[in-house]
């Protein structure tokens, strides 16, 4: 299987602290992969490596066939356009309306004219299950769930090849959590299924088991397990069993 992201023996130190120790993982193309782990395990740091926001102290990192640590700042900025990212609290630009938020990357990076942008924005809005009523509302007038949807629409605007979710459901109520998880699956499975690679960081084990094709477990800076979901459920690794048992009861 082809990898979208390939990490080989990555070590990351911040000063004296080693956050990632000899970490290797091959994240398959076109699938939904979740990285599980306790808080502070280094999950967000790992995700920032994918985007080139953080450089590894040692080791190699190939993302979408690019050798990320060697890219220049300009190349990195171009490279990042191939990603979409949904932030924990959606990170919508709060001075811009829903329309302006979703149109933002389209205005910045495409030659589409006003009408074409409006069409594309409406298309994206439908894809994330919102109607046109929210088009000219500010983020402060939207509910948490709606903001997440707009955030996802913005992340999808440039047809990314990799979609990153950093703790997409942390701090959400159960109903919105379910909605976001459904959204991740529909997006990951229907938006050009073979193309889009989804990577999720989470500690919500229930949802992870439901929505992921592959699951990795990050513990003390290392990937201690990486397998298809069915296999992962039956792992015998004591740390992971504890995590699974703790959170499923």
């Amino acid at each position, binding site marked *: 299987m082809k990898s979208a992201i390939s990490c080989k023996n990555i070590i990351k130190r911040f000063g004296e602290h080693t956050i990632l120790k000899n970490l290797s993982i091959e994240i398959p193309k076109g699938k939904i992969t979740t990285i599980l782990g306790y808080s502070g395990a280094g999950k967000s740091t790992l995700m920032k490596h994918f985007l080139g926001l953080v450089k590894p102290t040692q080791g190699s990192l190939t993302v979408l066939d690019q050798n990320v640590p060697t890219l220049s700042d300009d190349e990195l900025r171009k490279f990042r356009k191939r990603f979409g990212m949904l932030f924990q609290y959606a*990170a919508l*630009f709060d001075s811009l309306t829903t329309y302006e938020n979703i149109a933002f990357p389209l205005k910045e*990076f495409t030659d589409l004219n006003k009408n074409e942008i409006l069409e594309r924005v409406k298309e994206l809005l439908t894809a994330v299950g919102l109607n046109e009523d929210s088009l000219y509302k500010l983020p402060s007038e939207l509910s948490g769930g709606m903001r997440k949807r707009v955030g996802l629409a913005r992340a999808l605007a440039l047809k990314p090849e990799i979609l990153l979710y950093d703790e997409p459901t942390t701090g959400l109520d159960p109903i919105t959590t379910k909605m976001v998880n459904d959204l991740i699956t529909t997006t990951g499975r229907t938006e050009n299924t073979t193309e889009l690679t989804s990577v999720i960081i989470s500690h919500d084990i229930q949802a992870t088991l439901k929505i992921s094709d592959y699951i990795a477990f990050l513990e003390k800076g290392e990937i201690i397990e990486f397998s298809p979901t069915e296999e992962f459920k039956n792992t015998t690794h004591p740390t992971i069993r504890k995590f699974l048992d703790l959170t499923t009861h």
Partner: protein
Amino acid sequence: MLAIKNVFNKFFEIVGENVLSKLEGIGSFATHFFSIMYWTFKSPYRIKLFIDQLYFIGNKSLFIVALTSLFSGMVITYQTYIGMKVMGAYTLVGPIVVLTIAKELAPVFSAIIVTGRCGAAMAAEIGTMKVTEQIDALEVMGISSRQYLGVPRVWATMVALPLLNLVFLFVANVGSWFVGVELLGIEEAKYYAKLKEFVDFNVLLEGLIKAGVFGYIVGLIGTYHGFKVQGGAEGVGKGTNAAVVWGMIVILILDYFLTSLLVRLLYDYGV
């Protein structure tokens, strides 16, 4: 002996830490400065954002500048008149007041008002974007947040302040004329007579240059403290506060050095 040694150690530890953290602050401020410069000359040029910021600054400060300048002009005339009258040199009130306003009051007061109104707002706005990951969202899209948010604000304050300086100057002089001529009864001809002797274009230029430099610094400090924000709402509050305090301190200190430099460059006073 040991106790004294410990006290000494402690003393140097504290001083050392403070100096180091201040040096670190200067280092990251310098980085911010260079980054703003670098991104200024890199396309895409964000003209629309620059104009938006110019409007924003004008909107926020124009009325306050006009109001405070009127009363500053009035009070400074009053005080000068009282002082000069004692010495019987009240015909000098006009030029003294105009020089004070043009060279000092207008640029310094306008800059302090813009620091409080706009430097603070910049720190708050950018800081909020930082803690809500909007800055990260920009960077992940491949947009430099310093270019998108920093550059337009810094240059807009630099352009706006000289303009506000002119407004201050004009309104303050109206106030001065009103108090001097209308209220205190200096004859208009005498009020204006000595003006020509002392006031020339360089006086105006001195104020404008100062205002421009202050504007640049206010924008730089406001955006710097915005990007530096860490943590939640509390961090935003601290950043906003730091932007105002540092803005004012730097303006007042810089004013002295700028004055001594410009006096040498612009005039022939022999100082």
